[in-house]
């Protein structure tokens, strides 16, 4: 063990401590874990990706479905279809989704909204 070795070990320890401070304590990382990606696809093709996090304020946006514009609303970590041109409006009645693995489907629009990630449970019956 030379002096250089010892200095190197100390330098690595210090840098890992600094890295730990930055990574574990910085508030932005809370958001990093809690972020969820929502994939909106039409006819199987991804048309939009949205990131959901608790800090984000609600907003609405339009996506083009097969039979017209569909209005999607996000609020915190939730997402729903607010307005759609379909007759049965089943997609709107599916309401808010927020957990990974959940999805909203609008068949007439051929639109699929999925929250990315694995569901913590295999399935949910309602």
């Amino acid at each position: 063990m030379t002096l250089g070795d010892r200095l190197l070990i100390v330098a690595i320890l210090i840098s890992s401590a600094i890295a730990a401070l930055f990574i574990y304590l910085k508030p932005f990382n809370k958001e990093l874990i809690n972020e969820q990606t929502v994939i909106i696809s039409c006819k199987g093709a991804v048309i939009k990706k949205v990131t959901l996090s608790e800090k984000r304020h609600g907003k609405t946006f339009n996506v083009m479905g097969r039979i017209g514009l569909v209005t999607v609303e996000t609020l915190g970590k939730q997402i729903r279809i607010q307005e759609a041109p379909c007759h049965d409006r089943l997609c709107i009645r599916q309401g808010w989704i927020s957990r990974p693995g959940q999805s909203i489907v609008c068949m007439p629009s051929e639109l699929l909204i999925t929250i990315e990630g694995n569901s913590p449970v295999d399935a949910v019956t309602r």
Partner: protein
Amino acid sequence: MLDSRRVVYISLMIAMGSAIHLIEGALLPLPIPGIKPGLANIVTLLALYLYGLKEGMLVALMRVLIGSFIGGIFLSPGFFLALSGSIASTLIMAFLLRQTKCFSMVGVSIAGAVAHNTGQLIAAAIILENRAVIFYLPILLITGIPAGFLTGYLLQCLLKRSDSSTILNGFIRR
């Protein structure tokens, strides 16, 4: 120049590296996922020490390749992690061995282990397309120190004993 003696020794090192790599992976239980002593790094470091960057890189890459063939992880995410880690650590160790004078084998090995972990982590972030793996960085930096210390110390013992061992004499006295 294609020195056949050299070719044989490099092949031997690759074979030893692959064997150590596999035995280590199969026999040693891992206390924390993704963390192991990286004993196969001894062989890479030996090749770097005896020959140079080109040969060390060759030994490291072939070890990863053969190890992945035997272990059945060729072209899987784990293979790319091992590959990027090996490349990073070999480059760093070659630089420290050749360009600086203030580090012993232990220091070079520690730097190599830390570089290996960092390289793996960067590859993991790219493969998983997820920045959250950076949470592992401080853990991997710290665990690189004992792992590197162990391999570096073992190599130092090996080099010390090389005078009295005929097989190692072949390695050391080119």
